[in-house]
């Protein structure tokens, strides 16, 4: 079997907090042992609430955050540490679409400037760069004469299209989508989601999406990983996660999302009936009633497979 496109192995990212000479340095365990794989052409979504470590995981994959330990492999080769690729090679591995379309474009650069500069940096001639910029603008649904404009001349949705174009311009193997639509209005959201799915099909892109919006996640994902306090608590194919959510935290997330359909079907149970019990001899971990301690070492726990590719985090009773 060939190596998966992206493999994250036992990733830890710890941040020092409260630096002090006398006290032992405390660490915040932002990411605490995450394993994930992404296959080619797949959309993997990492969901969770703020502070659960989903963004830190994304930044580690992007090389913007050095992992404390663990490994990140792309097609079997490690991209972490000194053995990893240089910044030029790395740029062609993964690119990111940012949440805030207003802060993610340089206000002093034209669209053409934002898109052609990376190409020129990577050795394209001026002619090649211009050609490629025109092509990518067409792909994301912008007009050629948009190229000479500055970001402030565009609406939020158009800016996000420019952000997507910039992420695609070097032809990366992985596209990291960091809450790609949560800053956009509902109607624009739909356009950007449609665009991303069209592009995925057309260019056989592989997505890792960070999101807290379960509606968007269900719509776009092939596989879903639910993170809670630095760990994955449930992961599986999208239909398994949404049809048979098992971990109490996943169930809580799905239950609490405000769904307009509840007004029409007030009795519909979105989490499909009673909570299933944990596997024999195990308990769900972490216990959602008590907030886990993000500073201490987490209690031993493991992901247990309860269906094809459907894993939940459990600890011994």
């Amino acid at each position, binding site marked *: 079997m060939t190596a998966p496109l992206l493999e994250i192995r036992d990733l830890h990212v710890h941040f020092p907090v409260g630096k002090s000479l006398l006290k032992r340095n405390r660490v915040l365990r932002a990411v605490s042992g995450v394993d994930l794989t992404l296959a080619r052409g797949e959309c993997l979504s990492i969901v969770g609430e703020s502070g659960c470590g989903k963004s830190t995981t994304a930044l580690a994959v992007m090389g*913007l955050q050095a992992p404390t330990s663990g490994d990140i492999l792309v097609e079997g080769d490690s991209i972490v540490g000194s053995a990893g690729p240089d910044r030029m090679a790395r*740029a062609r591995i993964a690119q990111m679409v940012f949440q805030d379309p207003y802060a993610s474009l340089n206000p002093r650069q034209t669209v053409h400037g934002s898109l052609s500069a990376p190409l020129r*940096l990577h050795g394209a001639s001026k002619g090649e760069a211009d050609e490629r910029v025109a092509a990518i603008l067409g792909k994301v649904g912008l007009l050629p004469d948009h190229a000479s404009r500055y970001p402030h001349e565009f609406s939020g949705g158009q800016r996000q299209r420019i952000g997507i174009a910039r992420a695609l311009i070097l032809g990366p193997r992985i596209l990291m989508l960091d809450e790609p639509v949560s800053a956009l209005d509902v109607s624009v959201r739909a356009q950007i989601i449609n665009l991303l799915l069209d592009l995925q099909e057309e260019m056989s892109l592989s997505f890792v999406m960070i999101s807290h919006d379960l509606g968007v996640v269900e719509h776009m994902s092939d596989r879903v990983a639910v993170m809670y306090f630095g760990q994955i608590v449930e992961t599986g194919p999208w239909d398994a996660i949404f049809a048979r959510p098992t971990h109490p935290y996943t169930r809580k997330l799905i239950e609490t999302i405000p769904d307009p359909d509840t007004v029409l079907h007030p009795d519909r149970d979105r989490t499909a009936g009673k909570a299933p019990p944990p596997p024999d001899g195990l308990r769900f971990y972490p216990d959602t009633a008590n907030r886990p301690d993000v500073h201490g070492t987490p209690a031993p726990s493991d992901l247990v497979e309860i269906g094809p590719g459907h894993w939940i985090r459990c600890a011994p009773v």
Partner: protein
Amino acid sequence: MRRFNLNLWLGGGLVLLVLVGAVFAPWLTHFDPVFDANLMVSEQPPDGQFWFGTDEQGRDVFTRVLYGARISLTVGIVSQIINSVIGLSLGISAAYWGGWWDDLVNGLTNVMLAIPSLIFALAIMAILGPGLPSLLIALGLTNWSWTCRIARSSTLSLKGQGYVQAARTLGYGDIRIMATQLLPNMVGPILVISTLGIGAAVLAEAALSFLGLGIRPPFPSWGSMLTGARELIIIAPWAAIFPGLAIFVTVLGFNLLGDGLRDYLDPHMRSRAT
């Protein structure tokens, strides 16, 4: 709708006036600022021939004020360029790289802010000796701390922006990110602080020259003219008043221009397409 920006227009007008005087000095007067000494007409009050009167050697004060503007503006602008280059490179790199470099730059900035820059410039002049080049160096090395602070704080707020992160993931090197992503986005505040810095440098030049450490007589600088006019203050006050007025107008002009630019570049006052 933009309100009429009085500071910008008035400041810009005054600066332009001084600039025109400096550039077109030879066409605006037929005297020579140094060699047209004529003791026959010394200490003449202002009249139709000598608009600002004459000094103790009978030189036309108007001419010397015009040529003095050349010195003042050169010193102001060139020394501020040196200050900006130092302040920007230190400030941006300190905030972008952080760590010990940031601590070092911060410490240095605080030391610079603690020493009165005029005293520091005096010390440098004392070592280098008087003259235009040493004046440029002395004033260029002593007034970068505000630029540095502003560059540093701008960088701190900008470096978390998506486009800076995007540039990193696209393979941009650090220097390229600083030059293309960070620097262009702080031109507004930097421009404002620079115009204020030019005003300060003009004033410092006058002070140093007045103390005899800047431009030496007979070459006309506003400061050195004041030194020469010191003894004439009772019998020929115009020899002191007009260079003093020139300093005042220039410094006021640059300060108003700075305030005006700050309002002009304020994003809240800019129209935004949505």
